[in-house]
């Protein structure tokens, strides 16, 4: 089963753990409703769409309220340190958490006690902490955008905010940034670099790029990166090869974007709604949806 760890921007939201259901424009966990706009709820909604289409168990989530003070994140870290070792998840996805290297390391120690060890995927704040900890290669997949890739490529930067000027992101320099991130061991085993052209990378080697269909407005839309991470996480949890899952996720998210015909004012939810159709379209190019389910 896929498990997602992240926060919702409401300090009164309690720490909860459980399976997530989709209800219209909200996700529901332990009877609590959260609107799907961006951030971890957008990731969860996207993953839930894929799980539902492929007849997989609904995603499990650990969520806490945090609007940036770090209190909810710390409570989550402390809970995970105790809870994870007794769990069996196919994959763990870490998302919007206050970056904290000490807590990151404690959670990673807890993961070491899990058997079998889950696939580890990190994005957003937790990816920042994973890089800062010097343990990026413990992770199977990071899903940075090009700006975050530049941060991974800068061995001195503790946060994307401090990425040095000569490394600053430029879509034309993505291959160089990928190489630099691996030279300093600051990338996971796989990367799905989200940008005008998506790069799927395995141990420094670019396996494939995906550039079509293209909807330039998606760069401005908050939550589209979360959507990609949710899609690839669900596909990976299905047992699909991670590289194949990255390629499929890039195509599905682009397909969903194209179907939404977005402007820079479009909201992520309007694109997430098209994931199921885009999934079918992506796989129907080679095989029927039914056979995809059986194939994975």
């Amino acid at each position: 089963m896929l498990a997602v760890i992240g926060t919702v921007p409401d300090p009164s939201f309690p720490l909860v753990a459980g399976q997530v259901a989709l209800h219209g424009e909200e996700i529901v966990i332990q009877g609590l409703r959260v609107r799907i706009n961006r951030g971890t709820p957008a990731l969860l909604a996207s993953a839930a769409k894929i799980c539902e289409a492929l007849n997989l168990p609904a995603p499990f989530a650990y969520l806490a309220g945090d609007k940036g003070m770090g209190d909810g994140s710390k409570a989550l870290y402390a809970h995970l340190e105790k809870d994870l070792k007794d769990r069996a998840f196919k994959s763990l996805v870490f998302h919007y958490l206050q970056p904290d290297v000490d807590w990151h390391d404690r959670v990673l120690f807890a993961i070491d006690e899990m058997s079998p060890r889950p696939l580890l995927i990190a994005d957003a704040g937790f990816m920042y902490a994973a890089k800062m900890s010097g343990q990026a290669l413990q992770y199977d997949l990071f899903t940075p955008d090009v700006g975050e890739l530049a941060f991974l490529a800068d061995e001195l930067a503790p946060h994307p905010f401090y990425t040095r000027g000569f490394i600053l992101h430029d879509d034309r320099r993505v291959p160089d940034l990928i190489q630099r991130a691996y030279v300093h061991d600051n990338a996971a085993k796989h990367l799905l670099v989200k940008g005008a052209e998506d790069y799927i990378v395995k141990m420094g080697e670019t396996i494939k790029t995906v550039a079509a269909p293209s909807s330039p407005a998606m760069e401005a839309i908050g939550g589209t990166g979360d959507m990609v991470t949710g899609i690839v996480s669900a596909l990976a949890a299905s047992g699909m090869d991670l590289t194949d899952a990255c390629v499929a996720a890039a195509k599905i998210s682009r397909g969903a974007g194209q179907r939404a015909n977005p402007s820079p004012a479009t909201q992520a939810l309007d694109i997430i709604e098209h994931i199921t159709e885009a999934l079918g379209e992506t796989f129907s190019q080679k095989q029927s949806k039914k056979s995809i389910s059986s194939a994975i």
Partner: protein
Amino acid sequence: MFRLFKKLVTPSSPSKKIGRGILVFEHTSDVIRAEKVLKAKGWKVAVMGPPPEIRTGCDLVIEFPLIEELAIIKTLQESNTSPLQVVPVTSALLNPVNIYTTRDYGDYLMVRAANMKITIDKKTLTIVNISGGGCPDVPYLAGELVGKQLSEAPHPGDIGHTLCGYALQLAYEEIKRQCSPL
């Protein structure tokens, strides 16, 4: 009439690097508040990344002229924003990203500062999207800003708590500057 695409101006930093100290706070939001207080009083201070020996994660400090320490501390005490520590600068500080990029989508304008992007409708000056970032206040800030006009939206620096929030403040100031009346 709005002057979109004004020439970018690199923010200035304190001219002298010798005889400077740093103010260390518990939260990034405290740094942002203290910066606002000190700049309002005319102090030449700069928000920077801390030196490695006191770096705890994604933090910011305020660099200030050490000779002004007493007066600055008094100013901060009066505004209930006292720092946790005052430390002389002995090693290099990290410079925050100060390069902005602008993308014109026709009816919409997007400005990026560091890892944060803000997009507005050029006709109504309404914030239509916030994207980028990875700290937990990003979804919160987006919820507070999207759908509001630039003039009525809360300042990200006032309600944000992290480096991503601070980067969004820079993007917000830049897009306001580009859209300000001639």
